[in-house]
């Protein structure tokens, strides 16, 4: 009977039975072991869920980078700052709503998403036009210039909004949690997972079915020939970079729900994002998806064994070792199509 409850409490009850008749002890022991395996199963599920949740955050942060780094080959160290700008856009939207239209608070994120896309996207286009276009084919220089840019953006936000964390609220539909079997699922994590997958799907569809998507793919596969087909390659470059940055901005909206909104927000994601893209295979969106979830889940399964920080270190070390083995990542494109 107690076995049917199957949770931690029941386990405590059963192991705490003490001196009982042999029959009861035996029954209790079998109940204990069955509960324990049950619990182990649920803790696996819990870890898997945490892993998916972390994976979705990684994917969200990395997806824009998969465009700018993976597709265009630009090492954008200011990518994290685009995420940060998205988060601050959310903050500003919520401030305006709080002071002017409090009733709209639950819709604040819906308003923030397109705005964040535009803000970050616009800045992305600006960056491409003023800095990056002079540095194509010089990846190391791009890296340094965009790093400088990230310092400027951080400091600009610090000057405008102050160095401390800013409060971004969760709308009611993002708060709370529900129970699924033995595990607790918070709504914000669930929504972020759904949101991430939606962004991924929209991006994929955009690349596959729109004219701009076609032009982007044509330019990245053969820039010279694309120009000879009348595609304005420099415009496509700017828009592609803007798209990648805009998606980073959207990521910022979602991350504002689970992380501190501070000028340093982007810094904490940049290395992870690069790891995801490199691990998944540069130039392959599906690789980024698989890479993000693999790393997320691996991280959460390592955590109970090694602890949070050591788990993360272990992941970093594993990725470093992995890159040695497969420098082109998990889903590397192969053959002449890539070499050309």
């Amino acid at each position: 009977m107690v076995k049917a409850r199957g949770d931690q409490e029941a386990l405590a009850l059963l192991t705490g039975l003490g001196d009982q008749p042999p029959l009861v002890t035996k029954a209790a022991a079998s109940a204990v072991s069955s509960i324990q395996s049950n619990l182990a199963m649920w803790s696996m599920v819990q870890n898997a869920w945490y892993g998916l949740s972390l994976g979705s955050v990684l994917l969200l942060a990395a997806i824009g980078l998969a465009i700018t780094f993976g597709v265009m080959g630009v090492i954008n160290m200011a990518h994290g700052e685009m995420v940060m700008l998205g988060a601050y856009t959310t903050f500003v939207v919520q401030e305006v709503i709080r002071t002017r239209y409090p009733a709209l608070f639950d819709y604040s994120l819906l308003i923030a998403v397109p705005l964040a896309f535009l803000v970050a996207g616009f800045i992305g286009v600006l960056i491409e036009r003023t800095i990056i276009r002079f540095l194509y084919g010089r990846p190391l220089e791009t890296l340094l210039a965009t790093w400088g840019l990230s310092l400027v953006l951080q400091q600009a936000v610090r000057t405008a909004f102050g160095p401390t964390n800013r409060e971004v609220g969760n709308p009611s539909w993002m708060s709370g949690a529900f129970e699924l079997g033995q595990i607790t699922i918070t709504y914000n994590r669930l929504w972020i997972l759904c949101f991430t997958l939606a962004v991924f799907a929209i991006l994929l569809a955009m690349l596959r079915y729109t004219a701009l998507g076609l032009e982007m793919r044509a330019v990245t596969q053969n820039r010279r020939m694309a120009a000879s087909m009348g595609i304005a390659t420099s415009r496509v470059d700017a828009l592609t970079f803007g798209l990648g940055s805009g998606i980073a901005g959207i990521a910022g909206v979602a991350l504002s729900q689970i992380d501190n909104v501070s000028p340093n927000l982007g810094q904490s994601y940049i290395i992870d994002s690069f790891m995801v893209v490199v691990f998944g295979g540069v130039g392959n969106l599906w690789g980024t998806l698989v890479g993000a979830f693999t790393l997320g889940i691996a991280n959460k399964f390592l955590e109970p064994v090694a602890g949070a920080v050591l788990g993360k270190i272990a992941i970093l070390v594993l990725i470093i070792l992995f890159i040695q083995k497969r420098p082109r990542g998990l889903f590397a494109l192969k053959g002449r199509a890539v070499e050309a």
Partner: protein
Amino acid sequence: MNVMDTRATSAMLYLDGVHVSFDGFHAINNLSLTLAPGEMRAIIGPNGAGKTTMMDIITGKTKPDEGTVLFDGTVDLTRLDETRIAELGIGRKFQKPTVFESQTVQDNLLLALNVDHSVRGTLFWRGSKAESERIDKVLETIRLTDARNRLAGSLSHGQKQWLEIGMLLAQDPKVLLVDEPVAGMTDVETHLTAELLKEINRNHTIMVVEHDMTFVRELGVKVTCLHEGSVLAEGSIDQVSSNERVVEVYLGR
């Protein structure tokens, strides 16, 4: 020992049944070729016939999916990397002249000399008389004596081609793979290059890829025509250039 084996062991380079494919595309398709010691061989064929890929395989840049590649009859080249293969004595001139542009002509040759290539050896290196004499000799051969202190990047296209050939000479390999040596050269330069290669051929085995039929004719050596990754025809320039298929796919009617 059967015929096949003797052919393999007596050859300087021996390729048999080599296949390479990239992403479903067969770049090299059942390619078999032998190069005898001391031979000079011209390779012709349309673009994309696999000439450069073949050189990549011989020098270890590309690993074949299957097939045998032997050097000097015994050494299996498919197991070795570029450095090791270069050390064995296979030198290569690239299609696009690849010299060290920010270093002087003289230093380019110095780097190519086949002396101690270890880290320690180069750190404690001090020029010897023999070395500088060899460099002088190579400079003379490639007609760049006056340009010895110029940066390689400042040379004309033809001079860069020669410098790269000079680097091969300094390297003194057993086999020279020469990819399009006269591309972009004037008539006179082309003629001089042919003379130069013939001179080098006196004590080196050479495989030269070239489109310029006048040049190939001037070399006067056995010609192999590649097409779609395998050998289409082989023989003297006259035999090959009168071959129906060669005319169709390459020379044009």
